[in-house]
């Protein structure tokens, strides 16, 4: 086992949560990702959703230069969209299903994937 202090990890994507709101039936989150390299966000989120045992539906017929891109899941009750700007990417997660605890856990898992998936 190795223990290191790595305050700057170039394998990591810097993603910060800039807003979140939660009601009885829904939650929404906005994250900002610093774009240090090109990433296939659809693949990142689809892989994470598969691990969460959800079925991702990627909008494949939308050209990649059309904004925003999106992945839906839970029969449309969950939706992740991302929009590129010159320097960063704005990611929005909307959850209109599940218990409040499950919504928070799904959001945390997707945020972790956004940060650490290579």
């Amino acid at each position, binding site marked *: *086992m*190795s*223990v*290191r*202090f*790595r*305050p700057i*990890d170039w394998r990591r994507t810097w993603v910060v949560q800039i807003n979140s709101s939660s009601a009885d039936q829904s939650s929404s989150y906005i994250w900002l990702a610093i774009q240090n390299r090109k990433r296939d966000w659809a693949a990142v989120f689809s892989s*994470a959703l598969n*691990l*969460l*045992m959800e079925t991702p539906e990627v909008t494949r017929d939308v050209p990649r230069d059309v904004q925003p891109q999106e992945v839906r899941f839970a029969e449309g009750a969950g939706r992740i969209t991302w929009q590129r700007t010159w320097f960063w990417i704005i990611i929005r997660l909307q959850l209109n299903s*599940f*218990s409040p*605890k*499950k919504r928070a*856990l*799904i959001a945390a*898992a997707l945020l*972790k*994937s956004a*940060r*650490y998936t290579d």
Partner: protein
Amino acid sequence: MPKVTENAVITAPAEKVFQMFVEPERAVMFVPGLSRISNVSPDKRSWDFEFNWLGLVVSGHSECTASEAPKKYQFKTLTGNKSTWTYRCEPDGSKTKLSLEVEYEVPQQQLARFASETVLQKMNQNTAREIVSHIKTLLEP
């Protein structure tokens, strides 16, 4: 070796609960602090893991030592402070009794520096509790 145990009853069939463990990468979704699983062998019996707590990165290697669907899944961390993690699923009607047992070596040198054995036990107990709670949350509606 000291050990901690946590249990929960999950409203899901044992086969579905067991599916949470057979993909090593899935652990990232429910284990607090676990940031990466990589170098998974084709038979999914060994992998590397990485925890990240605010820049402090702990990495190591694990191997699956038992996979008896849908009842028991066990793996060991083989580097550094060794530990054995055992998940057991017992069908109970339409529900499943899930238990997680973690046996771990007490790291004597680190222990002297960072924490007492009791504190370490409490930390491991809390981690096991969170893991079982997360699995229950993810599998129930």
